[in-house]
């Protein structure tokens, strides 16, 4: 060990720049597959309730008669089971995280619009 070794270390530290990411000034890496939060499109939903029946944490509650869909995001573990099982692609996972909350917020609530009646069949019901 001598002056040369410590000189190399010092110059690497002074001129090398930081070796870690300056988070949060520099945003974190996010990839396409990152499971951030759940997003729902009510216009594609046909109220089959598979997402409610197969959610591992029972975070989604769907009411068939009232045609409502709600999700407790604090219970959701973003596993993506509902996304895989939804037959009409009404659910998908976004790569960004929701912002932190101080109190437990209410659930995300949607009313699902009734589908337009088909002219030849004389009105199609929404039931599967």
């Amino acid at each position, binding site marked *: 060990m001598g002056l040369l070794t410590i000189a190399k270390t010092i110059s690497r530290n002074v001129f090398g720049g930081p*070796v*870690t990411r300056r988070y949060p000034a520099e945003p974190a*890496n996010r*990839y396409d*597959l*990152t*499971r951030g939060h759940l997003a729902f499109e009510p216009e594609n939903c046909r109220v089959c309730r598979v997402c409610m029946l*197969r*959610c*591992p944490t029972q975070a989604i509650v769907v009411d068939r008669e009232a045609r409502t869909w709600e999700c407790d995001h604090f219970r959701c*573990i*973003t*596993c*993506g*089971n509902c996304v*895989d099982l939804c037959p009409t692609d009404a659910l998908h*996972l976004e790569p960004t995280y929701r912002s932190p909350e101080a109190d437990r917020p209410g659930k995300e609530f949607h009313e699902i619009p009734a589908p337009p009646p088909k002219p030849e069949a004389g009105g199609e019901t929404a039931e599967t």
Partner: protein
Amino acid sequence: MSRQIVIPFGPQHPVLPEPIHLDLVMEDERVVDALPSIGYIHRGLEKLVEKRDYRDFVYIAERICGICSFIHGMTYCHAIEGIMDLPVPPRALYLRTVWSELSRLHSHLLWLGLMADSMGFESLFMQSWRLREHVLDDLESTTGNRVIQGVCKVGGVRHDVSNQKLNEIVAGLEVLRPQLEDLMSVFVRDDTVRHRLSGLGVVTEQQAWDLGGAGPVLRASGIANDIRQIGYAAYDELDFKPVVETAGDCYARTLVRAKELFTSIDLIRQAVEKIPEGPVDMKVTGNPKGEFYARSEQPRGEVIHYVKANGTKNLVRFRVRTPTFTNIAPLVTCLKGIELADVPVVVLSIDPCIGCAER
């Protein structure tokens, strides 16, 4: 005759990643006996299996632990596939192997950092975790999450990884290799680390075998037992040797885990060279009936998922026996005779993952 006092260790302690309680019976500064007490994070996950469809339960099984979560999910899927005798596509088996080894890399780097922190060597802790970020980036870009991957399902895996991406992962790990060797040289050759860890918490070979040690605790005492040799997933087509040390003390356990980093990099390279083309999942119909013991090598040792099913979509019994649970007995034995200041180092050297131990 010195007086004996009882000092409680835990459940909150800076060195413990999860809460465990030990009552240390002390004479002056030496530990005479240690009584463990667990149950601080018992969540009853094994009972939840009676209420969830067996295909959805994989998301709960992998949340038994955050650090070793992929291997829990994979072992559960392996258990269900063993009962139903499903022909899982080979590409899925190879992908599971690659992710298991990435999971082992990040877990060992995490542990090396915690070990350095428990000795007070904080800058080494930060360097280990900085190298771990590279592995976590690989996991996030291929599975979607850094620690709880959620990519295993009954019958295969949920996402495919392109061959080009797999080659990029191998190339990135080869760039990481000299930095890991630098890190390992500090653990192996630094005087303070050797002085702190050598001769501490010795578990002899006979004790490790009889008391039920698992994983690096067994391998550091001279027994070449690595459950990857039984050939689950794609391990029967890959070539590796278990890393064995003979001293049985904390230093030997550190060496075993540091050398296993390089075994993992070699296994990933071999798996990516041999991975076949094909689908990555298969359609699963019907319900399981029967029982199966699925065994895997987690970073901490041997984990067993015992699944019993009776033909309905809820399982009858799901039992997880994790390596930390069975390493409690060697821990209590090797704590006898050491000084109070060394207790955190010895407790950390078995790699306690109490979330796994208690489910």
